[in-house]
């Protein structure tokens, strides 16, 4: 179908020049009507030969003109510009188009609309970008990956080893970006009506901020998924540890002598417990995930890398699940049907389930058992979160079920897995349970084991003394630790410990936190409270609480407060 009405009403001078060029290119190429190819050629600055311009437009080209009108309206421009044409072409290339054809009436509507808009509203910045893109620019997320890196750098990041400053951020950004393109692209293919193109649903990694992921939705229908770099680091680390456990326990089973078999199996398992404990202690004491490098062989590194990317995909799909289910709030009131569960917790399970379904479909063409592989990705994503949560929080909010419970729900609704997978998951969960059980110190021999095998080790800068010191502070029976803290406490320090021992958190915080609002937030049972927040509040108290042993005192106080708040890792 062709139109003969004037489609140029509302087009600026430059845009008209492009349309004329396209018409000349159509003539030069000997076609009957101007198509998208000629529009592209004209926009590429190709100068056409002189001639008699073609006056007819193909349906596809009309769609572009129509889209450019819409784009200029969205940008509150007074006329269609070349950039509107470019934006329309880009948009058209990314999705199947069902827009109605252009008409002179529509063009006239545009001129009316532009007159109504006038100068009342200023033109938004970068109006050809989606609001999600603009927001990411505001956040300071790079719009392209410019920092150079080598394959070796990428390998080091996947092994959890240190790289040059900035390079790790770049590689994590790239990982999040690529994972996003894959998941969003897959969903866009399955459900094009959602219009989840790569410039409307953007997945980006933030080097600072939460150890989680969050979706942000915008009025133009675009979305940004923000992934925390520390969550990605935790995922990579968890994938490496699981791969190590798989390989090392498999090797142990190969031993002919039973005693050696048992010893190697025990060592592999103990090493995993120790490294998980180290990750937990490091986060608890320093606020950051400490480096736990894994030097696996090439094949294992590849497997762990793929699993980590899959786990990141699960996280991204989970966020997209929230969007598709229309979850915008996190109500912590009990859900009417489930009783004990909050509405927000139920939403999390819905998003997990949706993500697992998406991942299973994504993996179907390449994996013989896609559901099993998708479950592994979910397992890694959830347990990476679990270890971090156990390390960080003194009190969890009611927004999310604990990660192990989320895993249990996914596992229960899935097909039974093979014996090896069952054994590996059970072993990892047992090691995790051992690592988070802070009521007794890990034996010295276990820490030493970590130095013996380079396949799974810890940062060389963390000495055994430091780690065992952290462990002692967390694992010493609380009464004993408090008694030691009292020896160095001032009168105010004594009072603080007394209040905490008597369960008077409000009174205790009144001594150490001057800001009323901050105190209220720390006491609010619906909000998370980090162990390090409690510790810092005590360490930065406006009065002198302790004459020496500052670290021990603040940990003792924070543990007393945390015990009251009931996190599993704080009992003892």
């Amino acid at each position: 179908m062709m139109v003969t009405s004037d489609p140029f009403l509302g087009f600026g001078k430059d845009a008209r020049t492009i349309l004329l060029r396209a018409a000349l290119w159509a003539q030069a190429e000997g076609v009957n009507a101007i198509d998208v190819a000629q529009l592209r050629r004209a926009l590429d600055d190709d100068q056409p030969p002189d001639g008699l311009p073609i006056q007819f437009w193909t349906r596809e080209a009309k769609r572009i003109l129509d889209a450019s009108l819409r784009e200029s309206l969205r940008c509150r421009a007074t006329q269609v510009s070349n950039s509107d044409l470019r934006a329309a072409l880009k948009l058209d290339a990314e999705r199947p188009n069902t827009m109605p054809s252009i008409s002179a009436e529509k063009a006239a509507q545009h001129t009316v609309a532009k007159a109504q808009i006038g100068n009342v509203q200023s033109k938004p910045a970068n109006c050809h970008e989606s609001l999600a893109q603009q927001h990411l620019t505001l956040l300071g997320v790079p719009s392209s990956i410019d920092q150079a890196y080598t394959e070796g750098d990428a390998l080091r990041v996947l092994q959890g080893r240190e790289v040059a400053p900035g390079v790790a951020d770049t590689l994590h950004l790239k990982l999040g970006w690529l994972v996003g393109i894959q998941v969003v692209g897959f969903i866009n293919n399955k459900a094009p009506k959602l219009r989840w193109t790569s410039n409307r649903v953007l997945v980006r990694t933030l080097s600072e901020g939460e150890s989680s992921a969050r979706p942000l939705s915008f009025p133009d229908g675009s979305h940004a998924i923000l992934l925390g770099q520390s969550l990605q680091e935790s995922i990579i680390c968890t994938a490496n540890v699981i791969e190590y456990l798989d390989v090392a326990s498999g090797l142990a089973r190969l031993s002919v002598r039973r005693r050696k078999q048992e010893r190697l199996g025990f060592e592999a398992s103990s090493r995993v417990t120790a490294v998980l404990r180290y990750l937990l202690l490091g986060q608890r004491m320093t606020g950051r995930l400490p480096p736990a490098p894994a030097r696996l062989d090439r094949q294992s590194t590849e497997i762990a890398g793929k699993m980590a990317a899959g786990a990141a995909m699960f996280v991204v799909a989970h966020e997209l699940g929230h969007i598709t289910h229309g979850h915008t709030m996190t109500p912590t009131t009990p859900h009417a049907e489930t009783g004990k569960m909050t509405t927000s917790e139920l939403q999390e399970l819905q998003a997990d389930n949706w993500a697992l379904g998406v991942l299973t479909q994504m993996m179907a063409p390449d994996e013989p058992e896609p559901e099993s592989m998708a479950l592994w990705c979910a397992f890694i994503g959830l347990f990476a979160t679990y270890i971090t949560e156990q390390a960080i929080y003194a009190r969890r909010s009611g927004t999310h079920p604990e990660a192990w419970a989320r895993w249990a729900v996914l596992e229960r609704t899935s097909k039974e897995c093979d014996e090896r997978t069952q054994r590996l998951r059970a072993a990892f969960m047992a090691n995790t349970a051992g690592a988070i059980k802070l009521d007794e110190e890990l034996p010295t021999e276990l820490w030493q084991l970590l130095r013996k095998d380079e396949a799974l080790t810890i940062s060389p800068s963390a000495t055994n003394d430091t780690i065992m010191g952290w462990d002692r502070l967390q694992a010493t029976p609380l009464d004993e630790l408090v008694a030691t803290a009292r020896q160095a406490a001032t009168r105010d320090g004594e009072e603080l410990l007394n209040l905490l021992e008597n369960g008077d958190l409000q009174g205790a915080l009144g001594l150490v936190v001057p800001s009323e609002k901050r105190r209220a937030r720390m006491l609010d049972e619906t909000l998370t409270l980090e162990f390090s927040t409690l510790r810092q509040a005590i360490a930065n108290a406006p009065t002198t609480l302790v004459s020496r042993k500052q670290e021990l005192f603040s940990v003792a106080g924070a543990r007393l407060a945390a015990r009251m708040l009931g996190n599993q890792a704080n009992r003892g």
Partner: protein
Amino acid sequence: MDSGARQSFRDSIFWDDETLLEALADSLLGTGPGFGPPDIDRRIDFAQAWLKQRTTELRKELCGEVWSQLKHRGGFDLLSDSAIVADALAAVHGRPTANIVAVIMLRRGLVSLCEADT
């Protein structure tokens, strides 16, 4: 600004620094559901760092016309001054973020931003 936004803008003038930073983090990072529970302290740190990274940009946006307009107004009114600053920031930062940044910047003092040695 609609009436709800105006009211919340008025309220924000009375918030303490930490609440303002939390609101800024909410505006930048979102408040809805996520993969794990929100790390409120980390979100506040993020907002703090975000503001710090933007000092140069904020100086450019606020220390010209806006600063001279405020200096020549005579008297100090946090609500109307915040509105002027928020208007100046709105084009780049978007409305909710601009409102919060405006209150924070005025609370911290534009003198220190605009007349400090850079």
